[in-house]
Every structure is written in structure tokens, then in C-alpha cells.
């Protein structure tokens, strides 16, 4: 992987508490899996940075190498890779996601 791409990813996940690498944007997701994760984060009232990998092929490949994870979306919290759509959804359903976010000091405000 290109060093510049790796640096860019590292900078993104370290300078933002919650980062979602996704296809499309939080407002216009281009893939059902990305959309599902956006919905979960929105429901938890979590502020996050969405990064659209479709606008940059080197980023789309780079993020897979960075995390050793072959698919997108990918969620990072405080620099740590949390998982893709299945894991995020599972953790949301069991309440682990909200708990983990709070433990890491991220504001969670579940919408009624």
C-alpha cells in the first residue's frame, strides 16, 4: 500500500473519535451494508466522520490492507477497528456497541 494512503487513514482514524469508511456518504449511502451502519450510528446519536471510499480507488484498496479486512463498511472507534456491518449490527442489538462507545468516552444519545 502507498505510504501516503496509509498515513491518510492513520490520521483519519486517530484524529476522529468515530470514523466510518463506507460506500457513499452518510446522507447518500451507495450500498445497503454501509447504509445499515449509518442507521445504527444515527440511532445511537453518535457523531461520526463518514469517508466515502468510492471517490478514491487507492483508499478503497488501502483501507482493506490497513485493517486486514476485505470488505467495506469498516467502523473505527478511537483508532481501533471495530468491525464491518454484521459485527456492528450484532453489537448494536446486544447493547454492546452503546456500552463500548460510552466506555471509550464517546457521547451516545439514543433517539427515542
Amino acid at each position, binding site marked *: 500500500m502507498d505510504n501516503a494512503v496509509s498515513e491518510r487513514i492513520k490520521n483519519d482514524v486517530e484524529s476522529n473519535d468515530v470514523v466510518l469508511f463506507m*460506500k457513499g456518504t452518510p446522507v447518500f449511502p*451507495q*450500498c*445497503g*451494508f454501509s447504509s445499515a451502519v449509518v442507521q445504527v450510528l444515527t440511532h445511537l446519536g453518535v457523531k461520526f466522520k463518514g469517508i466515502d471510499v*468510492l471517490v478514491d480507488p487507492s483508499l478503497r484498496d488501502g483501507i482493506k490492507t490497513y485493517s*486486514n*479486512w*476485505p*470488505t467495506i463498511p469498516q467502523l473505527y472507534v478511537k483508532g481501533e*477497528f*471495530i*468491525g*464491518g*456491518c*454484521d*459485527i456492528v449490527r*450484532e*453489537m448494536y442489538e446486544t447493547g454492546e456497541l452503546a456500552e463500548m462507545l460510552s466506555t471509550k468516552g464517546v457521547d451516545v444519545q439514543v433517539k427515542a
Partner: protein
Amino acid sequence: MDNATEYATRMRAKLTEALRPSRLEIEDDSRRHAGHAGAGAEGETHFNIIIVSDAFEGKSRVARQRQVYDIVADELRERVHALSLKTLTLAEDV
């Protein structure tokens, strides 16, 4: 080999050998994703997979899924675009 299920068959064989699952369900979900960028016309791009295996014992969700992705790395590189994975141990499969 039946071409329409070639990748499902390959993944089933590899996952069975590597994980000795007590339950393995592979469902081709490509049709539901038809028309979007990752869904090729040839099909077999999206699968729902449930694997119950004690090979997952003591491993985190990320570690379990990485293990599965490693086993079917060739299939992912060649054609398969996304897997929806449920990775459970025997005790978790209730």
C-alpha cells in the same frame, strides 16, 4: 460442477475442511443486490453464511470473521463481493 453454484460449492468445501462446522448454511443472496456496483451479471457475489464451529471458541467477533475471510480469500478476490457472516460456537447456537 454446476456453474451457478460454483463459488458456493468451493466455499462450502474450504470452510468444512478448515472449521469442521457442526452447522454450515450458505445462501446466495446476490439477487437482492442486483444492479449495484459490486453485483456482477454472473451472480454469486453476495452470500449469507452461518457457521457454527468450536474453532471460534474464545475468539472475538473480528478474529472469527478474519479467520473466515482468510479461508475464502481466493473466492473473495475472484468474484465474491460481500459475505454476511454469523460465526457462532456450539454453545452460542441457541
